[in-house]
């Protein structure tokens, strides 16, 4: 990277830093409030709901799978297992959860 790029980057960084230090008191106050709200959320629900929710989804999936499989399984041979079926069973509307799972995957990939 040439020196002009470096000068430009330093200049931009300085301007952006200045914009933070000159932030209005009103905005800083709102950020302060937001932080306290966030920290209070942590105290209220520090126990993550995800294991419970995951357990509930897994239990529901197993129960539904048994309902689907049981009537057509008089023989002792294991029923054919359809991944698409399972995927549909555990599918939930909560896009946030998908996003989180993707995020957890990212964490595992890069920090694990």
């Amino acid at each position, binding site marked *: 990277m040439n020196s002009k790029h470096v000068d430009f980057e330093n200049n931009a960084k300085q301007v952006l830093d200045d914009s933070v230090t000159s*932030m209005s008191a009103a*905005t800083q106050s709102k*950020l*302060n409030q937001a932080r306290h709200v*966030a*920290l209070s959320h*942590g105290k209220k629900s520090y126990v*993550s709901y995800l294991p419970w929710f995951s357990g509930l989804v897994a239990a529901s999936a197993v129960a539904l799978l048994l309902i689907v499989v049981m009537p057509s399984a008089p023989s002792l041979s294991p029923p054919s297992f359809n991944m698409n079926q399972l995927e549909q069973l555990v599918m939930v509307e909560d896009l946030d959860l998908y996003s989180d799972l993707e995020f957890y995957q990212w964490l595992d990939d890069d*920090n694990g």
Partner: protein
Amino acid sequence: MGDSLDQFLADNERQAFRMAQLAIGHRDDALDIVQNAMIKLVQKYANRDADQWGPLFHRIVQRQITDWYRRKKVKQQIFGIFQNNDEQAGSYFEEYEDPVERVPDKLLQSEQAISVLEKALQELPMRQRQAFLLRCWQGMSTKQTAQAMGCSDGSVKTHYHRALSSLRTVLGEAWP
């Protein structure tokens, strides 16, 4: 743990807010983004090592920004793109605080500099803007930026280089 997380957030909240505001051009929504990101970090990652909070927090903020754009796109498709564009442009410039009360010449000059840079950043595609802010301002490496943006190292390099070239072209004359 609580105190150190409090300190971490206190140290990073203003930069995160400016980052979000630069990304979306809307003060109140930027505040919401930062608050939501802080809540997610506290709820999900408070018990992680402190050195992981930085990358995680930026990752969450960037994800929130991307979601904001997705929601905006849906709204535009529903209500009409031209109407929303006009409203957005108006609200963007109305959100700046009036610098006259607070500052003498030097800070006013600084306000003008950031105003020029913000306008130029607003002209960039979202991903280029993200790459520029994370790499140049936050000082993240290419790999860290790729993690925060959820893309490959190569994409970060491309976005960043294009952003830098565009900004230098646009700001060439006006840059202090």
